[in-house]
């Protein structure tokens, strides 16, 4: 796979573990327990894409408000409203109680995900999160069909997609969810506990078409975003 066929995640350390970046047009899922930083990974993917790699992106949130998303970005020094004004980022909200709409901060519009993608010529999409997205549909069959349709659709749009998913298990004892099998790639983040300490850990479970580094590595959420450390052993996982 050539470098042009890889999409830089914009998350330091991750690309080194996945052969240089996500395969273009792939759908990758990042799963982990609440509070781990899944949305931070996803937002950084969109922000860095727009800011550094000239790839406009749409952030579709199912569980939060665009205003909050902008605040999270500002916490890392990311000026998301400016990128929205420049047409490089769009934040679309689809609550489980209403339809698709896009918030342009000044006033809500009825712009759909599809419209936002076309308007900014998006190359990246985030769906945050699949877990709540599923509740938009009445039963398991409908959820699975709609998720598959969503995945097919974003691939047709030519976008590289990152989806977040809640996963309550941690460590290596993971029971995989349906959506894990639908995605091309799967990243897992979890807490590693050692005595009185907890460390954030990152693992690439799968990424189709890529020779991945499957080892568990530590990551931090710092003042400028998420950093994964591909050359650092998480020492909390060493058995006494």
């Amino acid at each position, binding site marked *: 796979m050539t470098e042009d066929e890889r999409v830089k995640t914009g998350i330091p350390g991750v690309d080194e573990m996945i052969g240089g970046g996500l395969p273009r047009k792939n759908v990758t899922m990042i799963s982990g327990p609440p509070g781990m930083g899944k949305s931070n990974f996803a937002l950084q993917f969109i922000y860095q894409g727009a800011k550094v790699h000239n790839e406009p992106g749409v952030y579709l949130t199912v569980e939060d408000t665009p205003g909050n998303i902008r605040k999270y970005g500002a916490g890392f020094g990311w000026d998301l409203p400016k990128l929205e004004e420049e047409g490089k980022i769009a934040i679309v909200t689809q609550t489980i109680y209403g339809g698709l709409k896009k918030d342009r901060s000044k006033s809500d519009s009825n712009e759909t995900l599809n419209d936002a993608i076309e308007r900014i010529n998006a190359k990246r999409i985030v769906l945050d999160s699949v877990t709540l997205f599923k509740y938009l549909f009445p039963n398991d069959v409908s959820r699975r069909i709609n998720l598959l349709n969503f995945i097919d659709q974003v691939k047709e749009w030519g976008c590289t997609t990152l989806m977040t998913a809640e996963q309550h298990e941690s460590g290596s004892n993971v029971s995989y969810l349906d959506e894990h099998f639908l995605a091309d790639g799967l990243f897992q983040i979890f807490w590693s506990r050692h005595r009185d*300490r907890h460390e954030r850990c990152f693992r690439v479970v799968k990424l189709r078409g890529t020779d991945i580094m499957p080892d568990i590595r530590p990551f931090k959420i710092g003042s400028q975003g998420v950093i994964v450390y591909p050359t*650092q052993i998480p020492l909390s996982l*060493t058995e006494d």
Partner: protein
Amino acid sequence: MDSTNEDLEGSKDEGQIIVLLIPDEEYSRRILKITKEIANVCDNLCYVSLNLPYAPLINNFKKEGIDISKFYVIDGITQTAEIAKNRDGVEYVSSPGALTELSLAISHLLETRKFEYIIFDSLSTLLVYEASPTVTKFVHSLMAKIRVVGCKAIFTCLKQDSSSVLLKDVNMFSDRILDAEYWGRKN
């Protein structure tokens, strides 16, 4: 020059990684002497302190006549007692047992600050907080990183820990394990 002192000289010149065994009852005095000796011939040093918080450590350095402007300190102890405020010349790690955090802090500084010398004080403190296999893994990884950047280092250890499993393992990773007793008396 006695043999141990020659070894210390060698460690300054040859990129060696040395584990220095220091008698328990004289540890504080001797580590200061050794630090001063190294600071006299190096200008860019990193001191990893797992025993003394930054403020008393620097006070001790000043009393000993050590030029503190040559040092960048990684302080692994202050944050166990208080929330430390950011200041120049020091980076705080949450605990001597936070080995991943400590390793990341040292690695980052090794890459960015191009130290000539690291004084790691001490392996014995690590053993208070962590089991030997974890400490061994940490030290092995850290020594590899130090070699990659071509830095020199001394890892101090209480002499009473010289028979520990850790020291037997570290013997493989380091260039030498030295007894500092004679050097300390002479100086």
